[in-house]
């Protein structure tokens, strides 16, 4: 389903030389003020790139402030895209091209550009005032700051104003077309047409509106600027050849979209309506927005008064016979903790999506991290085991969404589904699946009154019966107080508490038999070194391991999707390697977690900068541990 996870095609670089980064690919970063329309620019470029049959991955990186003061570094918004003629697995380490729409955008981003890379600047924005706001004491264009890079200065502001002059728009409205002018130029650089974006702009503002006409004029002017060679050899038009994608219908999909649709698909396969209860929080809110538009898909959305109410109302919905789902990010998940314990104790299905962000506390709301592993696997009062799954890429969210609903309903348990800020916002091409490819897993509610006990158990799954209130003859009471095995009546009996704790544990442990065995993504089973990852680090780890394998190193890649229960063969599999390296975007949570499961010596490559892992740093970590 997910191209990014399919290493079978086109991702092996030529020859055996050591590559620091991809070759058949280009990384472009657009950066500007948060009001400059950079995300829209990036989204349009990604769409055009996908339609042109390039593989791609994107990384929108924006500030927590909605509109920080104009021209300041903390108001800089960026959108990075990597595209190429082979399968793209990350949004790229270092930009080959940076487009900076003001001095602040240059200040924040230029150091990331690869040496020799191209920086396109809007010269018109390099006023003394803007330079000062960005914190440049001297104009960086003249003092050697940018000496390692090629620069192309274009007065985009003036050219945009010029292009939009014939239309009845204010100067402010005209200047907003800067992103369109830039997009036009970049389209020319990569041999793409402007038609789709013209259609998009006309649709957004109305074809006859002056704003639409001005934007389209700016777009065409940018494209024409490249065409008419006004750029004097500084840049050349590049044609990135097509990737040989497997046949089928494709679209771009973000993690938030794929996750929302996956949950809907899971409910369809289970034969349940969904009650989605959530409280707004960055970066999880898009799921609420998407699902609230899908009411004709058996979806009801409820914006609760707080995170606790969101979890509790989802539990109430599951109790009433719907699939109760809630979603949040770190701080919100912490608030839901007690309610999740209630779902564990009353053994009700529940899916909790955690779009992780950098913490602790408020942390960095718009920056990515995977530091809620402890919180989700271990972070509850009492012995409270539950299922924890993680998605590895935007498109993969669809599959994990379905799996979360399947496990929650089959085993009458809450399930954590871990995504993160990177996956949620990033987009990638997706071979659109057909629903008929999926095996339904319909839920059967208990209606038989004979011999009914609310806490009797299925022999195989150990799940208790799910009874909808309203079912004749099956009235019963459940709650968070310890229940007598079988009857569910309140019980303070010591032996019973031991038994119930053991049963709850055994039920979750048993799920290990119902999930795929741990596979080795790349490399051999057994050897000198395995790099272990989970969640959104799949891309950089996979590419780094592929490159190192090509360089002749004995290294393998294991990616853990089922964080709890772990796949049955995982620990034994890890034992077949001399060294185990965990690479993750936290301070060692998977590392500590795996150490708790095995006596094997494991070490880690750990990073918490709010930015995704890079291919290069993972390669360096591999090289530091194995040689040819």
């Amino acid at each position, binding site marked *: 389903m997910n191209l990014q996870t399919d290493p079978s095609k086109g991702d092996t670089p030529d020859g055996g030389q050591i590559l620091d980064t991809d070759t058949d690919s280009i990384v472009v970063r657009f950066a500007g003020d948060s009001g400059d329309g950079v995300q829209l620019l990036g989204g349009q470029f990604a*769409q055009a790139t*996908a*339609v042109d*049959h390039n593989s791609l991955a994107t990384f929108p990186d924006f500030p927590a402030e909605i509109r920080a003061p104009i021209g300041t570094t903390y108001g800089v918004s960026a959108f990075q895209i990597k595209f190429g003629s082979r399968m793209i697995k990350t949004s790229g380490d270092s930009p080959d091209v940076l487009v900076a729409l003001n001095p602040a955008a240059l200040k924040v981003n230029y150091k990331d550009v690869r040496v020799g890379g191209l920086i396109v600047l809007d010269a018109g924005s390099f006023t003394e005032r803007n330079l000062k706001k960005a914190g440049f004491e001297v104009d960086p264009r003249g003092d050697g700051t940018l000496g390692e890079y090629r620069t192309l200065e274009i007065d985009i502001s003036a050219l945009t104003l010029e292009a939009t002059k014939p239309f009845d728009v204010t100067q402010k409205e005209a200047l907003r077309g800067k992103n369109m002018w830039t997009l036009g130029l970049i389209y020319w650089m990569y041999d793409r047409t402007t038609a789709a974006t013209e259609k998009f702009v006309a649709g957004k503002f109305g074809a006859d509106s002056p704003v639409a006409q001005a934007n389209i004029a700016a777009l065409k002017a940018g494209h024409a600027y490249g065409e008419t060679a006004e750029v004097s050899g500084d840049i050349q038009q590049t044609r990135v050849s097509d990737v040989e994608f*497997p*046949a*089928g*219908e*494709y*679209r771009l999909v973000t993690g938030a979209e794929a996750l929302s*649709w996956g949950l*809907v698909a899971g409910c*369809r396969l289970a034969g349940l*309506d969904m*009650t989605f209860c959530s409280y707004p929080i960055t970066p999880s809110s898009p799921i609420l927005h998407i699902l609230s538009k*899908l*009411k*004709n*898909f*058996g979806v*009801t959305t*409820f914006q*609760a*008064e*707080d995170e606790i*109410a*969101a979890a*509790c*109302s*989802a*539990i*109430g*919905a*599951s*109790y*009433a*016979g*719907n699939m109760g789902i809630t979603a949040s990010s770190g701080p919100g998940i912490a608030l839901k903790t*007690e*309610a999740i314990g*209630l779902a564990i104790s009353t053994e009700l299905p529940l899916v909790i999506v955690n779009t992780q962000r950098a913490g602790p506390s408020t942390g960095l709301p718009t920056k990515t991290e995977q530091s809620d592993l402890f919180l989700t696997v271990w972070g509850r009062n009492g012995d409270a085991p539950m299922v924890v799954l993680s998605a590895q890429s935007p498109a993969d969210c669809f599959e994990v969404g379905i799996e979360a609903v399947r496990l929650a309903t089959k085993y009458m348990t809450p399930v954590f589904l871990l995504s993160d800020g990177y996956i949620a916002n990033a987009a990638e091409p997706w071979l*659109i699946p*057909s*629903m008929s490819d999926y095996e339904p897993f319909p839920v059967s509610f208990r209606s038989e009154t004979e011999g009914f006990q609310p806490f009797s158990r299925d022999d195989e799954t150990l799940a208790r019966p799910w009874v*909808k*209130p*309203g*079912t*004749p*003859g*099956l*009235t*019963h*009471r*459940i*709650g*968070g*107080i310890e229940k007598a095995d079988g009857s569910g*009546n*309140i019980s303070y009996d010591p032996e019973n508490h031991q038994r119930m704790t053991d049963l709850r544990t055994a039920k979750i442990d048993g799920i290990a038999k119902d999930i795929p065995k741990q596979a080795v993504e790349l490399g051999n089973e057994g050897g000198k070194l395995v790099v272990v990852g989970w969640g959104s680090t799949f891309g950089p780890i996979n590419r780094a391991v592929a490159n190192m394998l090509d360089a002749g190193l004995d290294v393998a890649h294991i990616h853990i999707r089922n964080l709890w229960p772990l796949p049955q063969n995982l620990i034994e599999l890890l034992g077949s390697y001399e060294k185990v390296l965990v690479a993750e975007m936290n301070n060692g949570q998977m590392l500590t977690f795996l150490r708790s499961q095995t006596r094997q010596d494991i070490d880690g490559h750990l990073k918490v900068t709010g930015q995704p892992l890079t291919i290069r740093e993972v390669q360096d970590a591999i090289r530091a541990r194995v040689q040819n």
Partner: protein
Amino acid sequence: MNVQVEPAKLKAKDFASDQEVRWCPGCGDYAILKAVQVALANMGAQPDNTVFVSGIGCAARFPYYMATYGFHTIHGRAPAVASGVKIANPDLDVWVVSGDGDSLSIGGNHLLHILRRNVDVQFLLFNNEIYGLTKGQYSPTSGLGQKSPSTPQGSIDAPVDACTFALGCNARFVARGIDIQAKELGHVFTRARDHKGASFVEIIQNCIVFNDDAFAHFTEKSIAKNSQIIVKHGEKLIYGAASDKGIRVKPGAFELEAVTIGENGITEDDILVHDETNRVLAGLLVAMKPPEMPVALGVIYCDPATPYEQAVKAQVEASVAANGVGDLDVLLRKGSTWTVS
């Protein structure tokens, strides 16, 4: 959801579960439990279609004693769980049972929102002005100066009045009763269940162990009739052992006063008629405190509006009517796609 074929008339005991009731002997909760069971039987309620949801506290054990569906949840969150139940299945008859700590302290936020959203549940708040289950600490309804294990020098927290809070949350139904007044409670429960939308009922409840006689100043038999007024829509606000006392608007002021008919030239014509749809009057009535004024009991405010879950359902139905039942294969292909052959 639930097909009921000519349900047999049930008795109060048919609503009692087989679980031994474990409140302290003499607790007011026993009387409330009995009154609820009697009222449900009288109303022809069906156990299979009835759900009791509670939080944490003495009152919150209530669902275990009812032969209905029941969910004993976590502290303060019963309104949130009940909202989820009602959104998922609007056909269920949902009751929330809570205490003053559960719903006005830890769960105050959720009480606010279930009331202002107008989710169709009956919300019973057992107010004993004390934390019982944790052994006697003062609660958000305890009076100033209340001594307790956590306030050895007396409480310095200004208390909240439950019904005033409910009105402030835009509750569309506010009533008050007393644990030992079974008949009046039954009437209030019936009205609450008939009301479509959130029905808030404060029940004055005596905690015999930690706060005994907290309400004696208006429930003590010898003074009760002169210290309470049972309000009835469309009837004059008259009370007292001799039915000679009444409530009127104080001349020259925007406040109520208690008067005696036949004294100082006051006649029955001076006495206010209760209008349960008048929110301003309701606000004045719930705030009345003895000894100057009687405590208002009965249905103080009732002015129905569309219940939340009905509005939710209407939006879902409108979406289906406008777009048809959603097809996922179509959804996944909506927008810009491309084909590789």
